[in-house]
């Protein structure tokens, strides 16, 4: 009962945000520049949350997330531009393709641990990028021309869907299994948790939503190029999760929102942006290795404030 009530509270909250922004867009308060920042923010939130399930929940250190984003971006772009399918269907195709790629990459690499897993995922992401670079059907290095189809509605529904699925996953039996793996993989194994299964499931779900974000991303600009999805992009996604707190969904959402605004202000000074990002990353790791929020969620704060209350 309580859980379903919380669910409806969040849905209403999301609807309110959506309506306010939609009214502002229709009313002309938000011009194209701000709309673009908002869509960019949505994409970054999706990417952050989809990596959060891999790093934050399951504790598997993947630094090749941009590779799955690339798969989603290219497959959905092929679906709309070359096959003429509607945008909605194309997004699903992109997400499924990315999920499939996640499954293929995950099964062999998730046997590895720690640093080795990080390097292997990085290697796979680079291979994915080089494959797209060498296929003429998708334009090779010159890139692929894509029509602008992404709207605020698509981006926002994507975010809600991503957060909804991943929050539910975290609170489910699967999520508990994944958290057990994060805390101690050997102990989890000894307790009878099928560690490989849960790791692959979490990795695949992460890849699916990275692919969805990729599809939205590719239709937000007029061209996609393989170089967009390089290690720098993976690094961008990584910093959202690390800054927000390894294991905190709301933390990664907040970090994604905050850093999108920062990077929008610094868009004319990309070097400064990268210097700030890397300094933030180093300082967070040195002085607060769990990230800003740790494993806490922002809703914990509300609970704390209303200790005697019955809400949520």
């Amino acid at each position, binding site marked *: 009962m309580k859980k379903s009530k919380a669910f409806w509270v969040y849905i209403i909250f999301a609807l309110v945000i959506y309506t306010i922004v939609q009214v502002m867009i229709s009313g002309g308060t938000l011009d194209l520049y701000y709309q673009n920042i908002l869509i960019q923010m949505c994409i970054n939130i999706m990417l952050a949350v989809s990596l959060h399930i891999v790093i934050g929940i399951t504790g598997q250190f993947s630094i090749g997330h941009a590779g799955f984003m690339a798969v989603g971006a290219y497959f959905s772009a092929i679906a709309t531009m070359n096959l003429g399918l509607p945008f909605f269907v194309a997004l699903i195709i992109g997400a499924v393709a990315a999920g499939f790629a996640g499954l293929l990459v995950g099964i062999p*690499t998730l046997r590895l641990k720690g640093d080795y897993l990080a390097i292997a995922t990085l290697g796979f992401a680079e*291979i994915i990028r080089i494959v797209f670079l060498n296929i003429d059907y998708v334009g090779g290095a010159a890139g692929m021309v894509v029509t602008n189809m992404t709207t605020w509605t698509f981006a926002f529904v994507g975010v809600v869907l991503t957060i909804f699925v991943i929050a539910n996953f975290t609170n489910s039996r699967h999520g508990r299994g994944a958290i057990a793996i994060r805390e101690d993989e*050997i102990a989890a194994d000894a307790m009878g948790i099928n560690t490989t299964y849960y790791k692959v499931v979490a990795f695949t779900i992460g890849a699916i939503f990275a692919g969805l974000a990729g599809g939205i991303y590719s239709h937000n600009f007029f061209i996609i190029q393989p170089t967009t999805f390089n290690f720098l992009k993976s690094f961008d996604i990584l910093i959202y999760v690390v800054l927000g707190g390894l294991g905190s969904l709301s933390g990664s959402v907040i970090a994604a929102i905050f850093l999108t605004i920062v990077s929008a202000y610094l868009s004319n000074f990309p070097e400064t942006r990268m210097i700030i990002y890397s300094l933030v990353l180093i300082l967070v790791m040195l002085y607060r290795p769990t990230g800003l929020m740790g494993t806490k969620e922002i809703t914990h704060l509300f609970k704390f404030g209303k200790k005697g209350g019955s809400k949520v």
Partner: protein
Amino acid sequence: MEWIQQLVNGISVGSIYALIALGYTMVYGIIKLINFAHGDVFMLGAFIGFFAITRWDVGFLPALIISMVLCAIIGVIIERVAYKRLRSATRIAALITAIGVSFLIEYTMIFFRGPGLETYPEVLPNTSIDVFGVSVSSKSILILIVTIILMILLQFIVHKTKIGKAMRAVSLDADAARLMGINVDNTISATFAIGSALAGAAGVIFGAYYTRIEPLMGVLPGLKAFIAAVLGGIGNIPGAMVGGLVLGVVETVVSAFGFSLWRDAAAFIILILILILKPSGLFGKNTREKV
């Protein structure tokens, strides 16, 4: 006969990878950290060599030595400022910091001098030498000789000197080494100094061989050198040398077959195959998982 030429080219490239890989493997062996910033020390080494040659008009060898000394200092600074506090932190925290340091060096460099290319002056004689009817560029031979000398020097330091003995002891068991009166902090700094000096040397050699250097040049060779270190068995010094040479030759062969665009993918495929089939590398020891 063209094959032998390709092979020599491959060995020259491979020896650069091997020099960088040595730093990775030594640091990993001693503190179990993938020092992502190592590729950027390599880049700084190339630029220090470039400025030494163009501004101070020194030759190749003095530039090599200046670059090695300065890179050793930079390596120690990186270790003392960023990594030292993380000794007891999780491996992931250390890895994230290393990635952060890497990007910090790259973009600070771009911030101060822009992302443009620099062209290395001709510091090495570029003639073709006939060896058994095969023409081989003198550059390749010189680079190979310099690399071999540096590797012999490293073997000497690691196996015949006191600091080398300390390094081996710390990498085997840091706590036991501390109990035996070894200054672990200084030994780790020395490891960073030696590894970074080798990366600096690799930078100057890379510049002299390929003549083009830029602030992001360290990323790909850095990753490939890491692959070479994994291939040879990370933590294993001869393994890193062999791994670097093998990787260089494989890349040259892939290019020679006309798949030059796939060259970088080949390195990563090797990495993934080795990680899946034999994660301890070609010469690595199997380590048992401890609870």
